[in-house]
């Protein structure tokens, strides 16, 4: 009988998982799925890792789970060392989304020769001073590849095993000027539509909608397979 050799599986798709982020009018939505698997076998239902230094900015990770944890911890350590220094302003200093995206890109590129198999999504609200001195918040979306190339968009970004489908559903569903509640609907529907057809993503989704005054978390249900 012929011996059975296990084949090396693709590290970017081994654990599964997908994420989608969309921009609205002064708000952003981030959808992450819940499947953690080993190839075709589902192992656990748990939310994709999301790093949140402060309410206005989030980093979602998808890819090889071990590398996700390593990158998340490394990023967390770097962010902490830069923003948690001051005692006088006990309300902590904030890191802006584009700074965080640059930092993530830098850390990823440092490992150019043996990369983290992770595709992070940096999303948030970028503060922009107005002429009259007040602050408005512009949506910021950035997807990075495994070695840190940044793709910024004013519409949507996605990553993970279902990303090819997500590009399609998001392109069809997105329109400019979406308000908070509409954005949640559009992002959630586009996300679930792609998830249902993908065997390596699913088991539910978590939707975060960030606006300048608060963040909403919504749990979405879908086919559990």
């Amino acid at each position, binding site marked *: 009988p012929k011996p059975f050799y296990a084949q090396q599986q693709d590290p970017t798709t081994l654990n599964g998982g997908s994420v989608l982020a969309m921009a609205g009018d002064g708000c952003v939505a981030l959808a992450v799925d819940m499947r953690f698997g080993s190839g075709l076998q589902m192992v656990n239902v748990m939310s994709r890792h999301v790093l949140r230094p402060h309410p206005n900015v989030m980093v979602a990770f998808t890819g090889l789970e071990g590398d996700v944890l390593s990158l998340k911890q*490394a990023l967390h*350590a770097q962010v*902490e*060392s830069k923003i*948690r220094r001051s*005692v*006088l302003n006990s309300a902590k200093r904030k890191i802006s989304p584009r700074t965080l995206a640059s930092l993530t890109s830098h850390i990823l590129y440092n490992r150019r020769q043996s990369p983290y198999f992770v595709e992070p999504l940096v999303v948030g609200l970028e503060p922009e001073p107005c002429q009259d001195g007040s602050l408005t918040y512009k949506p910021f979306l950035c997807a990075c590849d495994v070695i840190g190339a940044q793709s910024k968009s004013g519409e949507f970004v996605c990553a993970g095993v279902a990303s090819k489908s997500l590009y399609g559903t998001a392109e069809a569903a997105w329109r400019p000027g979406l308000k908070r509640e509409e954005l949640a609907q559009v992002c959630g529907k586009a996300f679930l539509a792609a998830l249902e057809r993908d065997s390596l993503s699913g088991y539910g989704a978590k939707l975060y909608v960030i606006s300048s005054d608060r963040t909403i978390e919504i749990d979405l249900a879908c086919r559990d397979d």
Partner: protein
Amino acid sequence: SQKTIMARRYDSSTTTFSPEGRLHQVEYAIEAINNAGTCVGILASDGIVMASERRVTSGLLAPAKTSEKTYKLSGHAACNVAGLTADANILIDRVRLRAGQYQYQYQEPIPMEQLVEYVCDYKQYFTQFGGLRPFGVAFLFAGYDEHYGFQLYQSDPSGNYSGWKATVIGANNQAGKSLLKSEYKKTEGTGGDDEGKIPTVQEALQLAVKVLNKTMDGTAASVEKMELFTLTRKDNKKDCVHHILTESEAQAVVDAVAAEAASSGDS
């Protein structure tokens, strides 16, 4: 003549013992700190209080954006500085980095004693190698870890450190320490309980102001001349609450101390 020349030769090299078995450079560094602004540290039952004297050298100085006395080292640790601020900045940068590295490596906050020992080992290096002068800084470290709860440590240029329930560094520290000795743990009347009552953070704040009143040259310590800092926990969160009292909060403490002094009179 001969004797004075001999004494100087042992003075200049930090790494050489004097005939009496002393390291003069280290002792001179400690002297430098005794001229610096006073810092009081008090371990309370629910946190730690660190109060320091703010020395305003000139009215032309720009308003401070950061403290020159109190520094946050990590989510669970802070320190007060007495001595050369420039020297302190070097050490603080190193310990912040070390705390971050530990947290990254072990995914838990660095235990307080390890943090203090790391700074002190580095300070000790400069008393034994290389012909460099010691750091002219003394620290009060305040922090919380799950092993020993709230802890207060003091370190000096020699690299020596010790844990304290209450202590003072900087100018007039002896006067401050003697006041703490009598006031820190007041037995509550009855005979049996020798332990006494450890103050709460609010009580410790008032005690710290009393100590500063005593050490600050007899002039009544006003709110502009002092900085009151508390380290407490909220809801068992991983990060402690680091709080420098606002002007109104500090004024309330100073007023309470003045009221108590007025009502009780001199004892």
